[in-house]
């Protein structure tokens, strides 16, 4: 058996290293957006055909959009978001606000839970006292 030939690919990585960041981000983001749409379709139990029907487009057109690197306009994304019923792009500010709201809600719930436990304990304490009183009185 001969040995496998493994070729040096340092030029590939050299080119990547010299590529403007915005160009790399463009490819990465385009692919992320399509991946997000695919995940949402799966979550909503929808396929490309159903999405095409909701958008009034052909299945072939929607399939092209979901090839991984389509240059979406905000208009098209909004139509897709509406058809799916979920947001595809959420701004970092909105994510932060949502996270803050979520954390506040969790905190409030924990405080309320604590209060309720304390209230129960307080009631138990009073009951215990009265029981003791009853016991001593007897």
């Amino acid at each position, binding site marked *: 058996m001969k040995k*496998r030939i493994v*070729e040096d690919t340092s030029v590939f990585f050299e080119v990547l290293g010299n590529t403007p960041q915005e160009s790399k981000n*463009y490819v990465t983001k385009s692919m992320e957006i399509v991946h997000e749409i695919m995940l949402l379709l799966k979550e909503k139990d929808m396929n490309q055909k159903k999405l095409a029907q909701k958008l009034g487009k052909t299945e072939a057109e929607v399939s092209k959009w979901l090839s991984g690197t389509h240059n979406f306009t905000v208009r098209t994304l909004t139509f897709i978001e509406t058809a799916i019923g979920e947001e595809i792009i959420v701004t970092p500010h909105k994510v932060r606000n949502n996270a803050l709201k979520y954390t506040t809600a969790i905190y409030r719930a924990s405080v309320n839970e604590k209060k309720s436990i304390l209230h129960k304990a307080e009631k138990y304490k009073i009951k215990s006292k009265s029981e003791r009183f009853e016991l001593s009185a007897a």
Partner: protein
Amino acid sequence: MYATIVELGRLDFNKVKYFSVKIEEKEHSEFMDFQLRMRNFHPTQLGELNTLIQEIGEKYGANPEQFRDERKADALPPETFQYFGLDDIEPENQYGLRLYCLRLNESVVILFNGDLKTTQKVDDCKNCKRHFQLANRITAKIDEAIRDRLIKPGHKDILGIEDFEFEI
């Protein structure tokens, strides 16, 4: 002329391992020849293409919709892709770089050669025509070898490439 399938070192990502083809008497594989020829003339577009190769390899796997059909062979980038970087502003260069390849399964892709496409029909393109034809000739040979069980594409590997040599 004879050719062999070669591994592309370090192009072994989480989800895809990339291979190429080396023709005897040529110094580099077809894919590395493409990299070396394009890096000086179209560095930004080549960088975007390499990012695409890396992203497919690392995160998504080689899904059919990420490739365009080129008769028997495939090519990158996919149909809807528009290059972001502008290396060339001449109108005849609006089609961008084209890299011919063969997607064998979700985890194995053989990258061939390519060039800047200057016309809508590949047969009219003086840059791409020969790479397109070679990619289709090689694809036919590889398909035949798979049918004859000389080589077998598996998960991130092609079994039997050590002893596989084909005439083109």
